[in-house]
């Protein structure tokens, strides 16, 4: 006999719906990436998503699980997110490796959906960054910046993606450029002030906002990401806690230090729009599985991400710290869930009965 407990009504939400809303929210950003990098972006997106889905299918089959779960949207979302954090210069095998790593080591080995301690896409991205630092920090010049560059047509892109720069008779230097964060880091290391560096780079806040700067595929346009993120928040698919506390912490920290010494510390607006911060804040850090469950826990998580991102960007070797920060905070998630709990009705805060 099966006992069914109340409630005998359901609100109608389900995992598939959640996952597909996030995918839909990422479509503007994916479109911007295609606009910036042409066919290259299309190849990377399709490779990552396709390989993720295929890997998921084979792993599920190998484990004797229900292969229908491929369509719950989580593998597709992982592939999409992974593609969006990769630079356009990655060769095909790196994209494939990252997708397989994300699905197999990032997720399925931990027992599949709901059990991965780290965000799979970010874990794969961190592995790539540490293993192939050069390729992962070289950014293809976006299409609008150098229209004369023959990089974006279907055949050239295809050759480049599969055979590398030599196949398209291009040198690495000619087709890549530094991202604002990377440029700033190098210049600051040589004693140039922040303002000078940004002027030399022809940095424009407006461009960074609407998406005309070099970077990973999905990092380009803060506008597109914000559109998706705010839509998700309005739908209650993601809660506001992590993005808001993350961005706020970043802004406060950057602003504070920028006030202290504007020559060394970049202004808050630059930090907010540069790199993968917005993508991480709205789509990576909010990955429900690897972030805390309670509202307060999420705020602590967001603050931690903000601090770590700023610290790594400002003092570390790597120009971009958002991904590291999120993975590092993912490690702390179980502890946050254990120690930071919401106040229970009828109890005083901090005192567990």
């Amino acid at each position: 006999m099966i006992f069914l407990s109340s409630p005998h009504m359901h609100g109608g939400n389900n995992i598939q719906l959640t996952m597909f809303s996030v995918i839909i929210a990422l479509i503007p950003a994916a479109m911007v990436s295609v606009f910036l990098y042409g066919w290259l972006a299309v190849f990377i997106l399709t490779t990552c998503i396709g390989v993720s889905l295929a890997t998921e299918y084979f792993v599920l089959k190998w484990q004797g699980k229900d292969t229908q779960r491929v369509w719950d949207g989580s593998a597709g979302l992982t592939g999409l997110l992974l593609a969006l954090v990769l630079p356009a210069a990655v060769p095909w095998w790196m994209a494939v490796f990252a997708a397989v790593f994300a699905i197999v080591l990032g997720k399925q080995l931990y027992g599949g959906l709901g059990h991965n301690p780290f965000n799979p896409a970010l874990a794969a991205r961190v592995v790539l960054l540490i293993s192939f630092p050069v390729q992962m920090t070289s950014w293809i010049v976006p299409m609008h910046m150098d229209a004369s560059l023959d990089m974006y047509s279907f055949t050239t892109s295809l050759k480049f993606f599969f055979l590398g720069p030599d196949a398209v008779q291009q040198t690495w230097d000619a087709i890549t450029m530094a991202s604002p964060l990377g440029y700033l880091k190098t210049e600051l290391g040589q004693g140039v002030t922040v303002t000078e560096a940004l002027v030399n780079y022809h940095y424009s806040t407006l461009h960074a906002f609407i998406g005309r700067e070099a970077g990973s595929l999905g990092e380009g346009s803060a506008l597109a990401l914000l559109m998706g993120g705010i839509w998700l928040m309005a739908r209650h698919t993601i809660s506001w806690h992590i993005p808001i506390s993350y961005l706020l912490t970043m802004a406060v920290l950057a602003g504070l230090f920028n006030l202290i010494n504007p020559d060394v510390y970049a202004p808050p607006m630059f930090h907010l729009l540069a790199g993968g911060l917005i993508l991480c804040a709205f789509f990576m850090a909010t990955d429900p599985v690897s972030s805390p469950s309670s509202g307060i826990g999420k705020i602590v998580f967001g603050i931690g991400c903000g601090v770590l991102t700023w610290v790594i960007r400002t003092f570390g070797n790597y120009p971009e710290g958002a991904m590291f920060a999120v993975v590092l905070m993912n490690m702390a998630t179980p502890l946050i869930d254990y120690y930071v709990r919401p106040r229970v009705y009828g109890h005083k805060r901090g005192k567990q009965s």
Partner: protein
Amino acid sequence: MAFVYPVLVFAGLAFAIGVGLALASRYFHVEGDPLADKVDALLPQTQCGQCGYPGCRPYANAVAGHEVAVNHCVPGGERTMLAIADIMGVEPQAIEEEATAPVVAHIREDECIGCTLCIKACPVDCIIGAPKQYHTIISDHCTGCTLCLEPCPVDCIDMVETPELLEHWSWPVPGTKRAIKAEKRKGKHDAQGELSV
């Protein structure tokens, strides 16, 4: 003679540390075995002796002294085993005998000859009666240890399952269709494994 100094220094230091530790060990001496108490508190206290020890306390002492495995308490079942393994910091071990449904002893009074042998056997003193009188079992206190079955010369004691009480009813673990399916699959998988072996 260059080696004399180092040797002396080393010996001296070692001696000083030795004395210090000896004093400390006296100061931090642990009385009794608090662990055995903790283990004893986890045992169901049926005093049934199925673990091979004459009661729960002796088994607790043996477990606390790492003399015996943690999986010998039959009535305690898996939960007790896990709790003991947890507190002892050892790997959980499989329970050899399945714990049965809770039972209590019941005397068929018309057959009882009043020999008082069961009264002597009961570890928790829950059988009342006098010589040549019917005995009866206070079922609220019976631990279901079955120790009274053996001595009864006329085999008039039964073990009966305790009735399910409304106020003691509790929700079973949720069983969804998928969980049931998975369970079935696992069973099939195990069966296949056995076949192939």
